[in-house]
């Protein structure tokens, strides 16, 4: 078991008076191992930046503890935490050039000038900003400022690197290029990083584990694969994955041989009891209302399926996205061939039981993923 770099326990963040102000982060528990890359994923305003700022020491922790290297640090000044951060708003120091801004971060480390120069040159090359090193922050583009700010964080030899949307301003090609380089840079040096991102591809590509947040609450904290295959609740299920998971609320009934889901507009999905394990069936039968989820690429068209009326048929160059009216909602299908369906045409679709995610109708918690219990 490797060493824990960061341990967050029961942390609450209130802006304003405790229990009365804005409750930005709620009872957060999280552990990050040394050398891990964590992606913090969630919609705007869900508390990602607040979390990073508490770890860095710019915002007071309202409740709970934050430990690094086994010491509680939540009351420490930022200077004592040995954390590096790339800010959401870049926050470069205007009177200094990009080079000076990046080198500035090393000032307190008292390295020799030649070492500093070499490190700065490496970072500049890594982030493709060699040509703007002599320019001032006010005279470079947003994406360039963002990379300068990222460079200022990465150059430091800190115990923890906090990167708040470090590549949000970059075009996809550059982002893809830097993603690979940054991952290599972090892993090679054994650094520990938490990065905030809105880009799921980035989270999947970079992170060892993803923390999904919503409304200040950590929804799920797991590997990209687990998050995709076994979403803990309806939020994670629909938030992660492109295009998003199809969800339909359903009533549930069954006999000893069958399991039936009754969707809106009288749509009925009948399965054999053996399509689900005993345990899953037992859990399902305890409820009368559930939410069914299925990933768009898992939806199949097949003879004898349930009818759905095609509303959209888009070829995206490498896959076809089909949206069809289904049970009072929309069912999205992804197919890898170029499909040509007529709008208004009825297709038969089949939801394979092994691809079904079933969530509790009341609290949204996952009940089962295919054959297995959640």
């Amino acid at each position: 078991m490797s060493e824990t770099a960061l341990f967050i326990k029961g942390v609450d963040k209130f802006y304003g008076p405790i229990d009365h102000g804005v409750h930005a982060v709620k009872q957060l528990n999280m552990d990050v191992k040394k050398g891990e890359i964590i992606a913090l994923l969630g919609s705007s305003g869900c508390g990602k930046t607040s979390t990073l700022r508490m770890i860095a020491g710019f915002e007071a922790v309202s409740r709970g503890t934050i430990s690094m290297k086994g010491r509680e640090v939540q009351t420490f000044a930022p200077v004592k935490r040995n954390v590096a951060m790339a800010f959401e708003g870049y926050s470069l120091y205007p009177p200094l050039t990009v080079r000076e801004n990046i080198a500035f971060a090393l000032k307190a480390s008292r390295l020799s000038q030649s070492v500093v120069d070499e490190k700065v040159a490496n970072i500049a090359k890594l982030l493709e900003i060699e040509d703007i090193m002599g320019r001032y922050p006010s005279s470079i583009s947003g994406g360039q400022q963002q990379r300068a700010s990222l460079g200022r964080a990465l150059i430091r030899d800190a115990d923890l690197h906090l990167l708040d949307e470090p590549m949000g301003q970059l075009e996809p090609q550059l982002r893809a290029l830097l993603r690979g380089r940054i991952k290599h840079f972090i892993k090679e040096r054994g650094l520990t990083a938490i990065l905030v991102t809105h880009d799921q591809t980035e989270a999947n590509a970079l992170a060892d584990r993803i923390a999904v947040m919503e409304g200040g609450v950590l929804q799920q904290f797991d590997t990209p694969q687990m998050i995709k295959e076994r979403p803990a609740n309806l939020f994670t299920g629909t938030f992660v994955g492109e295009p998003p998971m199809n969800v339909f609320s359903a009533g549930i009934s069954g006999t000893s041989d069958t399991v039936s889901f009754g969707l809106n507009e009288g749509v009925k999905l009948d399965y054999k009891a053996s399509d689900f394990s005993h345990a899953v069936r037992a859990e399902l039968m305890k409820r009368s209302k559930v939410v069914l989820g299925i990933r768009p690429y898992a939806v199949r068209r097949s003879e004898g399926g349930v009818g759905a009326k095609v509303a959209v048929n888009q070829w995206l160059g490498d896959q076809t996205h089909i949206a069809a009216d289904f049970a009072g909602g929309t069912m999205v299908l992804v197919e890898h061939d170029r499909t040509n369906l007529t709008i208004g045409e009825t297709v038969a679709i089949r939801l394979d039981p092994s691809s079904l995610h079933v969530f509790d109708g009341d609290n949204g918690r996952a009940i089962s993923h295919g054959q297995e219990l959640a």
Partner: protein
Amino acid sequence: METTSTLEKTLRLIALTLVVIFFMFPIFWIFLMSFQTNETILAIPPSIIFTPTLSNYAALITGKLTTAAGTLDIAFMRNLGNSIFLSVTSVALALVLGVPAAYAFARHKFKGSEDIAFTLLSFRFAPPLLVLLPLTQYFQWLGLSDTYFGLIWVYQLICLPLILWIVRGYFEDISADVEYAYRIAGHSWFATFRKIALPLAGPGIAAAGLLAFIFAWNNFVFALVLASADKQPVTVGALAFVTSSGIQYGQIASAIVLSVTPTLALALYAQRYLVEGLSLGAVKG
């Protein structure tokens, strides 16, 4: 670039000229007056053709005022020295006290901080005459009346609120994250204040200091009541030109020219800081 028609340009030029004449004419006239004797000044009709004389300046500098009734001693040069000393030390003290306070008010909002800041500003609202009488009494008890120390103290009523409020605005305009970025790289908050906040707010601090200097320089009432002749600034000292045998316009004019020069020179020198200070908003982010 916007395109302006010739007509618009002409109108703009005329308007600007009018404004400049309106503001500059009194200064220009006083400048002319300072080189004339009382006779040519009071001649009717007034004329701008005259033989310039340096007698007014000579009188001020030597401290000998010749009037119809004889020669008077005036302490103008001493007054000028007092003005410079009082304004410079008052502003310096106000900067030393006010800039850190402004930083604290800008960065650390606590319960009641807004009220305290506002109370400090409200010192500027009260007419000085209102506080003058009790102040005179306190100062007599404390032995502070007619001392430079006491005057500088009272001048803080003028300078401190100005500096506090203006500089606070500049500090608030600096993104706190720029400072955090420095702190997280291993620096104390004090180092951050010195190395990041102060330089970034520099133009604003210069502007506020200049403004406070002008206000201190122009103060009249406090110095009139709280200081005796040898500690009075020029604003009060100029009263000496209203003599029993008439008003010495020529000397008043040259006194004004001499006393306006330092502030004017300072304002011209600091102009670029003022402009820079106003465009500091670009730092926000």
